């Protein structure tokens, strides 16, 4: 058996990553709260279930790069198809429902193990609306996060564009294995961007040193606030996820929700110097609204 020290990458190994992050042998697949997922052919690219993390139950949502969805042939290698996205949404809603009566501090955490190259890019997907499936999962995660469930995403492989928006970017905090383990976070690789924006790749690489907004890789997302912390080794993953679940729970208990999720990443992006214009624009917009708001209130002429 491969030991952790031998592993150079977890890319394509979502199930193995579950074994490394959560308490040994604690993962029960296909059961979340009162919900069971009984059809093995339903959304096989999505792995959902409940595990224990440091002795506490957590909902696990991961990708299975080895699965192939026979019904939707564009879904393989970790692609999130329509069934996969709705299955992931069901796991989130089941988590929310199970804890509906619990106080905020006791809401079960959700850990997203992220390794996905994209959403289903097929004709059937467009006819029936792949956009709804991925949107549904994001709304479910946002609802759970706002309700108080700590959500931590751990990028172990690919976190690409729309699939990362779907599975990752609605979390409270996002962690990523260091790029040396083959992790990829991007909209497009720099070679494609180079073609589209018509700039030599060498020029772009040079520019990326000073400006992280277009280059591919977790280190650039870190500078933009898009990744909270880079995890330096595979061994460190488990302790880092445990620490961040606790950190998120603590911040929520202190009413610091504004430092978490997509909005919190905005502030972090400014703090790290990667996205400094965003807060200025938002503040200016609010100021300009304030100046005229009375004209638009009920009863105004």
């Amino acid at each position, binding site marked *: 058996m491969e030991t952790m020290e031998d592993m150079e990458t977890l890319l394509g190994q979502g199930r193995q990553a579950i074994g490394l992050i959560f308490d040994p042998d604690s993962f029960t697949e296909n059961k979340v709260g009162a919900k069971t997922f009984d059809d093995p052919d339903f959304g096989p690219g999505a792995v959902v279930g409940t595990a224990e993390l440091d002795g506490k139950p957590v909902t696990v949502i991961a990708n299975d790069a080895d699965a192939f969805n026979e019904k939707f042939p564009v879904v393989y290698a970790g692609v999130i198809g329509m069934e996969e996205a709705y299955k992931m949404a069901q796991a989130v809603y089941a988590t929310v429902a199970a804890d509906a009566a619990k106080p905020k501090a006791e809401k079960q955490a959700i850990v997203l193990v992220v390794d996905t190259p994209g959403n289903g890019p097929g004709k059937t*997907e467009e006819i029936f609306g792949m956009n709804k499936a991925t949107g549904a999962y994001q709304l479910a995660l946002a609802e759970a996060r706002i309700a108080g469930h700590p959500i931590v995403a751990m990028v172990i492989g690919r976190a690409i564009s729309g699939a990362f928006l779907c599975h990752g970017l609605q979390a409270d905090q996002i962690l990523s294995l260091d790029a040396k383990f083959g992790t990829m976070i991007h909209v497009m690789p720099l070679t494609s961007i180079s073609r589209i924006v018509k700039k030599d790749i060498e020029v772009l690489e040079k*520019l990326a040193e000073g400006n992280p907004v277009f*280059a591919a890789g977790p280190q650039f997302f870190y500078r933009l606030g898009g990744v909270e912390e880079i995890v330096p080794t595979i061994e460190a993953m488990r302790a880092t996820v445990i620490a961040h679940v606790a950190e998120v729970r603590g911040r929520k208990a202190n009413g610091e929700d504004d430092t978490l999720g997509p909005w919190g990443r905005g502030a972090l992006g400014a703090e790290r110097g990667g996205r400094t214009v965003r807060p200025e624009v938002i503040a200016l917009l609010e100021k300009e609204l304030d100046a005229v708001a009375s004209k638009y209130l009920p009863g105004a002429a």
Partner: protein
Amino acid sequence: MSNWSALQNRSFLESNARARAVGLVDEGSFTEFVGPFDRRTSPHLEVLGEAVEFDDGIVTGIGKIGKTPVFMISQEGRFIGGAVGEVGGAKMVGALKAARAFAEKIAKDFPKAKEEEKPIVVISFETGGVRLHEANAGLLAHAEVMDQFQRCRGIVPVVSVIGSKVGCFGGMGFVAAAADVVVMSEFGRLGLTGPEVIEQEMGKEEFDSADRGLVFRTTGGRHKYIMGDCNFLVDDTIAAFRKQLAELGKTPRAKFAEFRRIGSPELVEKQLKRVALAAEMQPKDARDVWAKAGNADPAALGNAPLDDFRKAVKRLTV
């Protein structure tokens, strides 16, 4: 800017973002936020030596339709395909957040406000999603917009308007679907993966991206109306969109949840029935699904004048 009355009968498709924003609300009522005079341009385009726009390709502001305050976000497809970067994304996020705060203020300070005096948010989408020149910042902005959508629920309704040349694709394709209401013209297109990418993935025999009819049948307003992904299918004039928005402005806010297609466990179950139908049918063409919905002659339906289409069409009830 041509005068407001002249805008009304203009094609929505042919108009630009500012004409849409101004024309969709009452004459003289529009106040733009972070407009061209503020010159908030993209620093990232500048670094790459690209042309910038003083509004970064997104018009944001507030106007009124009748008594309804309307927060407006209007994307400009003529500027880098309407793609969203840091500044434009921040304008969207800022406008949504401001709309929410405004709605909460009215609820608190004007407890007797009539329904039509409460605000709505209107987003005219014309975009392929993320602006690649600043891809990472654009991606992060998408997640923020989605988060704001969820936070707006039950506080201020969000209406997607799609009737532009570029359509609404990529990450913004799921943002638009996550709104409370979707209003389209037959020329509007909504999806996730653009036609060229599907062709690349599936081969030309399966999907020929040069076949305009096929592209429109797959993502166009008529198809999305049959699927229930678009709530209202209107004529291609600014006035027609405006009339629909005026009706929505008077609609009780509690009713907006009924327009939704996603956003609750129940809606997920409903959509999953359709996914099962997709697996069962393996449709070669959107017309197969139109027939399944009970339309005997899908080809004729697709070509019928819009009024006849609206009268005759049967929408999918699965």
